[in-house]
């Protein structure tokens, strides 16, 4: 280790400053002795004794006083040594001296701003040294590790703030650095989570207004990247969904007792394990989504959710909506809407309907109406009157479209129209009961031209997914609401030849974006405001009873088929790991994922109404692609 001289010398602060300045100036002239000693002191980072720490702090302070003499070309090794330091390797004294030096450096010359910001952003995560790489997770569990994390991150964030005070344009540079330094999708989960945590902290901090939108957009981009990494096949392995479906039938037929049985418990556990444990990407996505949810929650509590949501919505329209059948990332929107259905929920629905009605790209229009239908069906807290209003706009568009068409069935040419019809029926399957319970909405529903559309020569009833059509017709008949033509013949089929065609290569006919979320941790946030098919179905069991009152329906929405779903998510303690896990398992039983073989008829004809797919797999068979 260098600098034996420095140990013995006794300087005042200003003398030391002068020495460092002289050393820096001498290095430019070619005399590098003292300069090299200085670099060596800064380089030395392992097992520092108390004297060495003191020496390092003194040197850093002295360099901070002499930043105006540092030259980016002549003092490259010094700069590399400083910028190569990691706050995680040192105690608080060194950290403080180092961040002070960084602020001085960044404000002394424009050339150093990027370098300093980049170094701070790298410090969001522990360094890639063997020590941290192997022990990081264990370390974070201990109080020592946690306090280290707090010490480092507090300093990183306050320094970023300090730099932006002195260099007002630094957030502009920071945006780019944040984007570039974002860990790639194959980075380990804790590291990635930590980075995202820091980004969100920036968003909620003083610099939020400046870098916030970049942060949110970058996170959404990363979520969607992770999302598309998970293949549909991973979720819908044959025996996986078959098993779930079998259990759903069991559950429906009888009692919850079956579920308690050991045999079922094991199988189910094994199935969830199979999806989750083998799937690191899903776990990663799950953690990042939870971080985002928590952030949205805190934004809501601070009254700035709408502001954040506007950015999210823009990013959603650009990335999630246009991505090929996003599976999970869209639940960020769902959660934000469930926090503030008045503002966010309505903004989402309005944005989607605007795209459906006025969009240019037919695939995006279909995808947006699929999102809309799924959202209107699944979100518990949106008012029924609002559902009716949005539905009316969809129906009106479909009506004005088919009014001008006089051809026969043509799934390919009129795919947007068929998507609209299917969306209408899908929403009504979930919401019809609720609408009929309110006289005003009932008459509104009757005034919509649904019969005209469904009876049109384009024959949407034969093109849309038979399972939805069938359920819709059954409901319409039971409630004597629409006068509709005869049911098509293909009872019990999930998909038909026509539906495959109108869905196109992307199978947008089978796209229900807000189907039950398979991510374990996310599900806890989503569930309190989520409508499961089983909850809706249970209201139909009372079909024969006269005068079902609103309250009954509301009750059914709250306590669906044995699972109690609290009205207010905030009452729940999410920390109760065990009970939550149980509830999650229980909810998984409520999903009916359709079997891979679409010709396989599930459920008997007697129970046809059970077949409403609450989770539909996309067809991945080669011929459909």
């Amino acid at each position: 280790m260098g600098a034996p001289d420095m140990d013995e010398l006794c300087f005042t602060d200003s003398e030391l400053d002068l020495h460092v300045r002289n050393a820096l100036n001498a290095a430019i002239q070619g005399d590098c002795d003292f300069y090299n000693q200085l670099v060596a002191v800064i380089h030395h980072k392992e097992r520092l004794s108390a004297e060495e720490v003191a020496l390092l702090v003194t040197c850093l302070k002295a360099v901070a006083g002499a930043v105006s003499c540092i030259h980016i070309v002549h003092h490259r090794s010094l700069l590399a040594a400083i910028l190569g330091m990691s706050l995680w390797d040192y105690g608080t004294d060194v950290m403080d001296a180092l961040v002070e030096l960084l602020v001085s450096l960044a404000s002394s010359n424009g050339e150093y701003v990027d370098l300093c910001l980049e170094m701070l952003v790298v410090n969001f995560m522990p360094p890639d040294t063997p020590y941290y790489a192997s022990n990081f997770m264990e370390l974070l569990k201990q109080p020592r590790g946690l306090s280290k994390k707090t010490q480092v991150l507090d300093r990183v964030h306050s320094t970023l703030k300090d730099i932006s005070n002195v260099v007002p344009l630094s957030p502009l540079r920071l945006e780019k650095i944040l984007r570039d330094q974002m860990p790639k999708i194959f980075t380990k989960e804790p590291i990635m989570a930590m980075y995202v945590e820091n980004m969100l902290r920036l968003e909620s901090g003083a610099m939020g207004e400046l870098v916030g939108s970049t942060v949110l957009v970058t996170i959404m981009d990363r979520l969607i990247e992770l999302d598309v990494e998970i293949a549909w096949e991973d979720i819908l392995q044959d025996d996986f969904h078959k098993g779930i479906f079998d259990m759903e039938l069991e559950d429906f037929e009888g009692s919850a007792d079956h579920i308690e049985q050991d045999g079922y418990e094991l199988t189910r556990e094994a199935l969830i394990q199979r999806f989750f444990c083998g799937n690191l990407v899903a776990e990663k996505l799950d953690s990042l989504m939870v971080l985002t949810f928590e952030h949205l929650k805190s934004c809501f509590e601070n009254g700035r959710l709408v502001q954040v949501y506007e950015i999210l919505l823009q990013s959603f329209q650009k990335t999630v909506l246009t991505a090929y059948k996003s599976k999970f990332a869209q639940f960020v929107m769902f959660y934000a809407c469930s926090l503030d259905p008045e503002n966010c929920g309505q903004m989402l629905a309005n944005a989607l309907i605007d795209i459906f009605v006025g969009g240019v790209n037919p695939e995006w229009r279909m995808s947006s109406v699929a999102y809309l239908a799924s959202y209107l069906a699944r979100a518990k807290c949106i008012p029924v009157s609002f559902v009716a209003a949005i539905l009316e706009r969809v129906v009106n568009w479909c009506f004005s479209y088919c009014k001008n068409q006089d051809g026969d069935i043509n799934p390919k040419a009129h795919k947007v129209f068929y998507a609209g019809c299917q969306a209408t029926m899908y929403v009504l399957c979930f919401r019809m009961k609720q609408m009929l319970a309110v006289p005003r909405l009932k008459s509104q529903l009757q005034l919509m031209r649904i019969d005209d559309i469904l009876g049109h020569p384009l024959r949407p009833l034969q093109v849309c997914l038979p399972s939805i059509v069938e359920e819709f017709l059954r409901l319409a008949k039971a409630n004597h609401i629409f006068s509709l033509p005869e049911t098509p013949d293909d009872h019990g089929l999930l998909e038909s030849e026509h539906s495959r065609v109108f869905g196109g290569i992307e199978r947008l006919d089978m796209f229900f974006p807000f189907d039950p979320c398979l991510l374990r941790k996310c599900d806890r946030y989503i569930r309190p405001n989520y409508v499961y098919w089983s909850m809706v179905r249970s209201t139909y069991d009372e079909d024969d009873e006269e005068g079902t009152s609103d309250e009954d329906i509301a009750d059914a929405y709250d306590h669906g088929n044995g699972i109690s779903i609290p009205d207010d998510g905030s009452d729940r303690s999410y920390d109760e790991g065990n009970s939550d896990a149980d509830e999650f398992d229980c909810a998984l039983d409520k999903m009916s994922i359709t079997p891979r073989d679409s010709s396989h008829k599930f459920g008997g004809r007697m129970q046809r109404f059970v077949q409403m797919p609450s989770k539909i797999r996309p067809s991945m068979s080669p011929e459909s692609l």
Partner: protein
Amino acid sequence: MAGLEECEANLVVYLHPSKAKCADDAILSELSSLLFTYNETFGGVVLAYDPKIRSNLAKILPGVYPFFGVQLKAKLLLFNPKPDMVLEGEVVKLTPHSIHAVVLGFSSAVIADDDIRDEFKHKSKSGEEVYFSRTNRKHKIKVGTILRFSVKSFDEEILHISGSLLAHHTGCARWLDKNLDEWSRADSTATKRATGDGKQENDRLMIDGETSLQNDEQIVKSKKRRKGHT
């Protein structure tokens, strides 16, 4: 303040065909992308714009995407500090070795200790840092002071100004304005000749970093430049 100028530019903004419905917004967003970056064509940092579209007709470029070019005339406010110009900024941080200020709210300026004249002495009083003048005890520089300094160099990429307080007509703007006689007397004739009287005249017109446009002839210059923009 010196360094600011208004110019009139003839521009052609090429827009993507998807923007045809909302050409006005698209033009504004194109112009916004110029803000706070140094632009060599204009020779300065664009701070504000005021476009006037000259006609409804646009020229369509042949190609896979038929971009269309809208001709417009825009008034631009440019910021282009040159060495020896006198600027003003608000002091945000003082250290024993440097003074940090922010000019016009976006550009950072630093004055290193080599560039602070010996008259000023740094002192830290109960945590509050201050630079005060040895000759005029009332002439102080604190955080929040509007500082008048001369430009040494300007980093066009990050808009970072390196400044100097060596000349006598630099320092706390408020004190300089109030005590015109004292510092102009102290100012040697040599310095006067170097900086020129006109500049001091000009300096006197500004208070607290705001630009007074009474002396339009000096500050506002018209430039006509053409710029093709895609």
